[in-house]
């Protein structure tokens, strides 16, 4: 009656399980890729690019918040730093290729991220959030005061230029596929990071920091690295956004933007890879649809209500809830 269970069997079944899961993931990703490639045929490309830029921003934020457990309330600073740097360089040095402008913007955001991380990582929880918020406000005031940003008026007429001096980005479709390529590369990078031993340590820090310390990990160093990586990707999102819209404005640096990215991540599902993308798509769409319709006076209250509802009833967000549902009913 009691048949002995061989450990190899268990091992095998786990492996099989993982394989089928991997296969399912591959299929989902494949379908998504096809949808994204075909999307500009049906949907206005600039709108899609907006979604992609904000998705990347949310993915970057989620790397820090969802996987490492650090709630930064200052990510707008990196978005704006990337955007303004790229905008300034492309407007003033016409010889510079668009790709160089974007790289420079990303590097500036990375440097800023390092400075933020070194200062804020010494505190935890709400104090960490407040330190990042304070630093981001400093950056905001710098942008308000600086002449090169155009202050309240913003920076306008940033040329899209050419990619590698070959492909004109003035064309919306070319621009879209460029943004899509960068987005997919970053998404795969984050996927790789999360799945790597480094990513496992980040998750360990999120779940139980003292335990990670007791296991001998230099927790601070891991946190700084995660923070800098997140800032770099946020800066890249800002750089691309400034090229797509041909403008950079104070809205990107305002703390509302830091709040918006938290909303996107929570609604989509923090700690999942696809969550921030779904969240960003959802929030950008809701904002757009509402602003066109008769409910436009109510955009902010409605977004607020969605936020409260998510936090109270659907803690794991859209993607998280779907995953839970599939686990309960389909496996």
């Amino acid at each position, binding site marked *: 009656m009691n048949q002995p269970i061989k450990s190899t069997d268990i091992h095998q079944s786990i492996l099989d399980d993982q394989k089928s899961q991997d296969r399912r993931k591959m299929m989902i990703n494949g379908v998504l890729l096809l949808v994204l490639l075909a999307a500009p045929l049906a949907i206005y490309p600039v709108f899609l690019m907006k979604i992609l830029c904000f998705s990347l921003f949310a993915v970057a934020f989620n790397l820090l918040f969802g996987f490492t457990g650090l709630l930064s309330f200052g990510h707008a600073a990196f978005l704006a730093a990337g955007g303004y740097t790229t905008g300034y360089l492309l407007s003033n040095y016409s010889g510079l290729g668009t790709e160089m402008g974007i790289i420079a913007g990303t590097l500036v955001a990375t440097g800023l991220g390092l400075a933020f991380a070194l200062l804020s990582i010494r505190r935890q929880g709400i104090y960490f959030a407040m330190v990042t918020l304070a630093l981001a406000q400093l950056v905001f005031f710098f942008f308000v005061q600086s002449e090169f940003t155009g202050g309240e008026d913003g920076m306008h007429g940033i040329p899209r230029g050419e990619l590698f001096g070959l492909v004109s980005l003035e064309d919306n479709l070319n621009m879209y596929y460029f943004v899509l390529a960068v987005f997919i590369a970053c998404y795969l990078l984050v996927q790789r990071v999360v799945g790597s031993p480094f990513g496992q340590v980040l998750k360990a820090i999120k779940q139980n920091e003292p335990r990670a310390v007791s296991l001998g990990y230099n927790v601070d160093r891991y946190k700084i690295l995660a923070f800098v990586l997140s800032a770099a990707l946020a800066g890249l999102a800002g750089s691309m956004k400034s090229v797509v819209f041909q403008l950079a404005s104070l809205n990107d640096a305002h703390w509302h933007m830091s709040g918006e990215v938290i909303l996107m991540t929570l609604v989509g599902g923090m700690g999942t890879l696809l969550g921030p993308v779904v969240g960003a798509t959802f929030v950008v769409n809701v904002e757009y649809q509402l602003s066109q319709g008769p409910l436009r*006076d109510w*955009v902010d209250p409605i977004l607020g209500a969605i936020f409260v509802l998510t936090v109270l009833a659907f803690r794991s967000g859209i993607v998280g809830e779907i995953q839970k549902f599939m686990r309960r009913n389909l496996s």
Partner: protein
Amino acid sequence: MTMTKKLLTSAVASALMVGAAQAEITDNTVKIGYLADMSGTYRDLAGPNGLAALEMAIKDFGGKVNGAKIEVVSADDRNSPDAASSTVRRWVENDNVDMVAGLVASSVSIAVSKILEENDKLGIVSGSAASSITNEHCTPNHIHYVYDTYPLANGTASAVVKEGGQSWYLLTADYAFGHALEGDVTRVVEENGGEVIGKVRHPFPTQDFSSFILQAQASGADVVGLANAGADTTNAINTASEFGVTQSGQTLAALLLFLTDVHALGAETAQGIQLTTGWYWDMNDETREWSDRFMEETGVRPTMVHAGIYSSTLQYLNAVAATGSDNAQAVREQMMDTPINDMFAKNGRIREDGRMVHDMYLAEVKTPAESSSDWDLYKILRTIPADQAYRPLSESKCDLVNN
């Protein structure tokens, strides 16, 4: 022979048709997009009531122009140039919108005007303050209709000095907009023989103005000038009222203040403030008549922005009717050639940089005793003639102006 004749006639006919196609209303529809802040800080001064003003203009025009129908689409810009530019791009590239009206936040107006220039469509800016819109950011595709910061600084400062306010103390918002206003006011005050005896810069935005107002009060200046805007101005006025600045004999000069702001503050708090406005509802029978109609529609009195939206939309439709075309350049040229004489402006004209210049007015907020109703708020002290109010073309940095 007949063959050549036929060919000739058809050639002539097709040539004529091409000519007609250029001066035509595309897809037999004039489509107007109304873009403004519908939910944020600037909701009251333009917002949904601006859309009502626009629709009033279309109704008064007859709902059709040369047989073509007039359509309106509208959207909330959320005061964000990103949101505005993606909306307007879609409007002009996909939805055949011919003209964009409203336009409040300066960053939004500048962003939108660049897109309109790219696509050769027309924009009429009614809500924005920045004078840079028709200076370094001018394009051949937009018109700035109601007011800008130049007459606000110029008009208020010179008029107040002439009214006897010799010494000034300035409260400046510490960012580019405030600095520009401060510079303009200082220059105008000194040119007119006045003197700026002190100034203080406050962070943007500021909630608590007490220390700044106390400094202004202690300075003993005749005039306290507020070189700021929006919530900063109303906060400063509230604090000034608590400290009794105007009651103790100092004049409060606001540079950017709308009727809706004053209405929200109330005559009790705002009394005695001097400000410049492009239009006031209670100026004459014509303005009163229109304002009554507006109030029936919306329940409030119109600001100068609402009146400007109404007036500019009518001007636009008249120009479309006169040229028989919705081509941006043809319409803009026609609008530049036609002097504006309606309830909003007398002898207004649109200059080549896109600036609509018209008389501005120095107003003073009435005391509660003088005010007979909720909206009876201003008395007009003097008219600032159009040619003195706006930045002269000789100082323009706009590429469209030959200097």
